[in-house]
């Protein structure tokens, strides 16, 4: 407290006066602002007012459309542990200390708001905020790092706004309750997140402070959706190759340098203008997007998490907004001020001025001038430069223990099976600037949809630009569906494993013979097809890694010939006008025999060949065949004439001039043409098949279930249950068989030695005689009981006959009932005796049999074998 006092004294100094003035001014302004706003509003035009109202109402809708009431009434407190409902003496002591601290604080700093020290919990019991924090390390490895923790908290809980946006809440529920009901205000959020972060080893603190409107209402409409941000292309640094000694000099540049300079100047001017225009445009847009000034700016209470550097290799301090799970630098303008912060050990009050948001704050919690601590003796105070001045207070050491003691009484936080579903009810919607993100839990949607991002053209979110839908666990391996609303282009992305090896399928309609591009996982296909592009009149295929070096095939179709019969695409293929095929270089062949491109002009009966270029040449051989089957003037069929093959050869060769060679080449090409046409036709069929398959898959949209997913996999569940049942039965049976009839007899003999024959025989005999004795004993026992019962009955009967006259009706009834019961017992005993007599020899024989088969009495077996 001395520090506080000192501070007050210091404030009197001239240096502090200025700050005080500023604080005064700020306070004044705070009071003035609502009035001003009101004044402003009065002066506003009717139009803009309506606009503002509309805007505000919109915000209301997006934020609290379906917020259920989260009040004390809905919470079932009966199941909470006792520590929630009462305070231990130590906690009471702690509260007293806190009260005392609060009193002194309000006395010394009367202009500051009261401290948020001990709100009520769900059981209406005041609890010190530090004890509400329950450091917990979650059993899920995903929740070990701060980013995933923050994402989890923001996904898992539904946000409820503070009852009064200008004050901290009166209640602060325990994280157990918050987790159970999956909703809470910013304080609940940050308490839970802070508990998890401290549990995983971060130096994290809950912060009570002031945030911007967007922050407090979890309004992301001015944020750019992180999913829409395109990853920056990493520009490859072109390695400047050092010119070698004998690199040829470039040809002399004969252009005028002056003209070039002029040109460059002109270009620059144009570019500058363009840039300016763009900037203006941008500014205009920015202006339009800017938030309307908030009337309560700087007064809205918010709570978030501060992570200090040091532990877990955190390089520098940062804030986490628990609503969104995003991290912000401590300089961020959304965070407007800090009143106090606490962790599970201590509570600090910010003594620094927040006139410039949080930008000037220094998070050295050991500095008592900047951060006034409530409890002495935590690790941070050792950093303090003025350590000597607070050594007089002793009782606070106990208090510090109190915090740790009282918090350890609370149960560990647990996240139930709801962990997988993440969001409450498995669904969450986040509104970003020009984008809307919807999330679902896996398996919630029957078609496997897990998230959908809708991008809009305008800020009002009316014109949809594009929709991206992510899927999971689809049997058809569909991963992402991208619909571009402006061009109407749909693109499906697949993971490896589709039966047709699809990678990407982009189309406008599912009708065949329309614009479409299908990409494949070429390694999964036998024909090495990479991509197939279709337009109404053409089809282009790209190949890779084929043994025949085919790399490209392009087919163009003519209009379909009308047939009288009912025709479909399958039965009446379009006539092929032209097929172009390109090949990679086949290193096994010389270049002038290796065809690079061949064009079958089907309609013109013309075949064009272009060969690969030889390494030291710039021209390539060409050959053109005209396939005319004509008859000459005498009516004889012309087989081959020189003008049917026009060829250009880089290095003229003799054998290619021969008609025979040309004829054979042409025959070969004719066969190839037939094959190619067939290939094209098959490709068309395949497209039809793929389209059919896709439609079926879309209609069925079955989901796969991993065999490791014990909860969902029905088959494995059944199997497992059956296995368990079997195991149980097996266990029972084993227990039964484990009754060792030989054990007592074996115990008499020295252990570990093999039995001799004599011993075995004796053992067997002993065992059998013992068993026999047991059977006889049992029979005797039954007999004895029987006799006893009979005797008693007889006695009773005697007694009855003697006293028959004096008996009351009640006694008589009693007697009669006794008789009937006794008779029943006697009968049962009789039956048991008879049964025992019947079974005893059988049991005896069975035991004998068993003994013969017992491995320990193997000696016996030998003799009988």
């Amino acid at each position: 407290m001395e520090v506080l006092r000192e501070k007050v004294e210091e404030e009197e100094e001239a240096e502090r006066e200025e700050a005080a003035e500023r604080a005064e001014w700020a306070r004044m302004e705070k009071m003035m602002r609502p009035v001003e706003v009101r004044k402003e509003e009065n002066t506003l035009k009717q139009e803009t007012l309506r606009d503002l109202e509309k805007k505000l109402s919109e915000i209301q809708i997006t934020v609290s459309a379906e917020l259920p009431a989260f009040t004390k009434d809905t919470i079932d407190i009966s199941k909470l542990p006792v520590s929630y409902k009462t305070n231990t003496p130590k906690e009471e002591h702690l509260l007293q200390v806190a009260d005392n601290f609060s009193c002194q604080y309000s006395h010394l700093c009367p202009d500051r708001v009261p401290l948020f020290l001990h709100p009520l919990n769900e059981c209406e019991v005041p609890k010190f905020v530090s004890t509400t924090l329950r450091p917990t390390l979650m059993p899920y490895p995903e929740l070990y790092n701060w980013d995933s923790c923050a994402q989890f908290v923001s996904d898992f809980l539904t946000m409820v706004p503070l009852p009064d946006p200008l004050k901290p809440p009166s209640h602060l529920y325990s994280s157990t309750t918050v987790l159970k009901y999956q909703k809470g205000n910013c304080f609940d959020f940050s308490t839970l997140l802070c508990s998890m972060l401290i549990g995983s080893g971060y130096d994290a603190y809950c912060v009570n402070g002031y945030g911007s409107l967007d922050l407090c209402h979890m309004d992301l409409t001015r944020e750019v959706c992180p999913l829409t941000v395109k990853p920056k292309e990493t520009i490859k640094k072109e390695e400047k190759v050092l010119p070698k000694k004998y690199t040829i000099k470039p040809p002399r540049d004969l252009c005028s340098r002056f003209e070039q300079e002029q040109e460059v100047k002109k270009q620059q001017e144009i570019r500058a203008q363009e840039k300016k225009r763009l900037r203006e445009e941008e500014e205009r847009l920015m202006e339009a997007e800017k938030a309307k000034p908030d009337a309560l700016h700087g007064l809205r209470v918010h709570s978030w998490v501060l992570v200090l550097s040091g532990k877990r290799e955190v390089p520098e301090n940062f804030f986490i907004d628990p609503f969104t799970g995003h991290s912000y630098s401590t300089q961020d303008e959304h965070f407007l001020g800090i009143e106090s912060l606490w962790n599970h050990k201590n509570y600090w009050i910010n003594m620094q001025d927040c006139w410039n948001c949080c930008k000037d704050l220094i998070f050295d919690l050991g500095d008592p001038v900047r951060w006034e601590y409530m409890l002495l003796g935590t690790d941070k105070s050792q950093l303090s430069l003025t350590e000597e001045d607070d050594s007089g207070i002793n009782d606070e050491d106990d208090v510090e223990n109190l915090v740790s003691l009282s918090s350890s009484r609370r149960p560990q936080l647990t996240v139930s099976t709801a962990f997988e579903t993440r969001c409450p009810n498995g669904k969450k919607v986040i509104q970003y600037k020009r984008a809307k993100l919807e999330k679902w839990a896996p398996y919630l949607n029957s078609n496997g949809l897990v998230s959908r991002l809708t991008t809009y053209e305008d800020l009002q979110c009316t014109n949809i630009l594009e929709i991206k839908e992510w899927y999971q666990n689809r049997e058809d391996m569909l991963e992402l569906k991208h619909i571009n609303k402006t061009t109407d282009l749909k693109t499906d992305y697949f993971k490896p494993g589709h039966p047709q090896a699809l990678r990407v399928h982009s189309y406008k309609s599912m009708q065949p013979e329309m614009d479409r591009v299908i990409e494949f996982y070429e390694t999964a296909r036998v024909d090495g097809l990479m991509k197939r592009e279709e337009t109404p009149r053409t089809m282009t295929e790209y190949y890779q890694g084929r043994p025949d070096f085919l790399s490209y095939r392009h087919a163009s179709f003519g209009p379909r010939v009308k047939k009288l019969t009912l025709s479909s695409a399958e039965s009446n293929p379009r006539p092929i006008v032209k097929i172009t095929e390109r090949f990679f270089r086949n290193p096994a062949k010389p270049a002038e025999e290796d065809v690079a491109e061949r064009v079958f002009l089907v309609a013109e009966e013309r075949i064009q060949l272009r060969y690969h270029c030889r390494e030291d040449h710039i021209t390539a051989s060409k050959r053109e065949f005209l396939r005319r089957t004509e008859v000459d003037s005498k009516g004889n069929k012309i087989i081959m004439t020189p003008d049917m093959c026009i060829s250009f050869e880089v290095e003229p060769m003799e054998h290619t001039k021969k008609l025979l060679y040309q004829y054979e080449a042409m025959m070969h090409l004719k066969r190839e043409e037939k094959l190619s046409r067939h290939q094209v036709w098959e490709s068309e069929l395949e497209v039809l098949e793929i389209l059919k398959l896709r439609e079926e898959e879309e209609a069925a949209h079955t989901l796969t279930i991993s065999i490791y997913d014990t909860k969902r996999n029905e088959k494995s569940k059944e199997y497992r249950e059956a296995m368990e049942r079997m195991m149980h039965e097996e266990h029972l049976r084993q227990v039964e068989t484990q009754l060792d009839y030989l054990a007592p007899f074996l115990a008499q003999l020295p252990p570990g030695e093999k039995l001799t024959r004599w011993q075995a025989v004796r053992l067997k005999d002993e065992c059998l005689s013992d068993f026999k004795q047991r059977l006889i004993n049992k029979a005797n026992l039954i007999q004895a009981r029987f006799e006893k019962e009979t005797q008693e009955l007889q006695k009773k009967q005697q007694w009855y006959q003697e006293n028959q006259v004096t008996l009351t009706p009640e006694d008589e009834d009693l007697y009669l009932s006794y008789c009937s019961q006794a008779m029943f017992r006697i009968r049962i005993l009789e039956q048991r005796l008879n049964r025992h007599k019947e079974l005893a020899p059988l049991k005896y024989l069975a035991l004998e049999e068993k003994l013969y088969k017992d491995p320990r009495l193997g000696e016996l077996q030998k003799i009988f074998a």
Partner: protein
Amino acid sequence: MNRPCNSMEPRVMDDDMLKLAVGDQGPQEEAGQLAKQEGILFKDVLSLQLDFRNILRIDNLWQFENLRKLQLDNNIIEKIEGLENLAHLVWLDLSFNNIETIEGLDTLVNLEDLSLFNNRISKIDSLDALVKLQVLSLGNNRIDNMMNIIYLRRFKCLRTLSLSRNPISEAEDYKMFICAYLPDLVYLDYRRIDDHTKKLAEAKHQYSIDELKHRENLMQAQLEDEQARREELEKHKTAFVEHLNGSFLFDSMYAEDSEGNKLSYLPGVGELLETYKDKFVIICVNIFEYGLKQQEKRKTELDTFSECVHEAIQENQEQGKRKIAKFEEKHLSSLSAIREESELRNIEKMILECSADISELFDALMTLEMQLVEQLEETINMFERNIVDMVGLFIENVQSLMAQCRDLENHHHEKLLEISISTLEKIVEGDLGEDLPNDLRALFVDKDTIVNAVGASHDIHLLKIDNREDELVTRINSWCTRLIDKIHKDEIMRNRKRVKEINQYIDHMQSELDNLECGDILD
């Protein structure tokens, strides 16, 4: 051999016979008509079948340069000959003939399948050139020595062998022996060798095979050693400093120097010679190392140069290709436009445009080529200057080192003369002379004789050193001139080839256009 051919007249392989065979076995039907129309050149024939023709002597086959498969079975050939030109032959069938020795197959390096079934061969040899041999059929012959099998070990590709019905196949160990000594063999006598047999055979003949292998390995190692040594020497030779890394030059100096050898018996000369030799060898090694270093330098220089030239040519080619591709695209579309055009005047106009395009392409390509020629010339000149400088520097340094050698020699000569004269004086005085060899004593007759002898030795030494130096200088100079000549010549050849290529292409384009013109006008 009781074959019906015995009673028939042997026939000669003449042109008619070959023509007939080629005609019969050539293409059939439509292609056959064409072939008949054109005639078939012997060198285009890939496969020829000449069986059951009573041929006695293989002849007239020199024209069949590209023959892949030749069947000469069931004739009465007695000697393998006349196959020297058939270097591409893959398949040769000489079964059912009367051949006695294997010969004349040394040029058939591509042969994979050889059949000599049913002949009179008694020894397998002269097959060394047939490195690709896979199938060898020697059944029904007179091979009687198992050692012939070991000869077959050198054919690494041999998979199929038939030796049935030979005297050796009667031996009980026959199969095991072959399996053991030819482990890569898959088929023997038309049957697959199973793994079990292989293992058995291996076990049975393990010792002898191991020994054989050891011997083969030794031989191989020796060959490799030889090869390495030869390569090393070759490397030194390219550096022009061979045999300078030791006392070779020094030894050669004394090899033909009888006086010098005699004089070395003089008292005191032995030590002198020893120190002289040491110093001399050190200088030689210096020259050697310097030479290797310089060679390395020259090599990197040459590599950089050729790399740069290659890059430049490649770049130029790319540009040319791009230009041609662009032109062709345009040209094709204008050609089809001309075909579709019906107005004669328009056609003419378009044709004119086309030919203008062609000449423009020609100009562009030629400009590119001329540019490249200029650039390359500059680079080549620079390289020439550098390499000549390098060689000059090398020669200069080597000469200075050689001069050191000469100084050493002179020094040695003086010392030797001194010793000789003092010895002569001693002999004259009669102090010593008993322990000198007789032929040496003969030199010490008078002063002139001894001085002459020492002088002759000195002259021989100097001559050797001069010769070595001259050899080095001439060789490196001739290498240098040859290299530069070759670079210039290559460049000229390249230029001519490219110009020819461009001209040819342009001519083709022009003639195509002209043809079109004619066709159109005719239409």
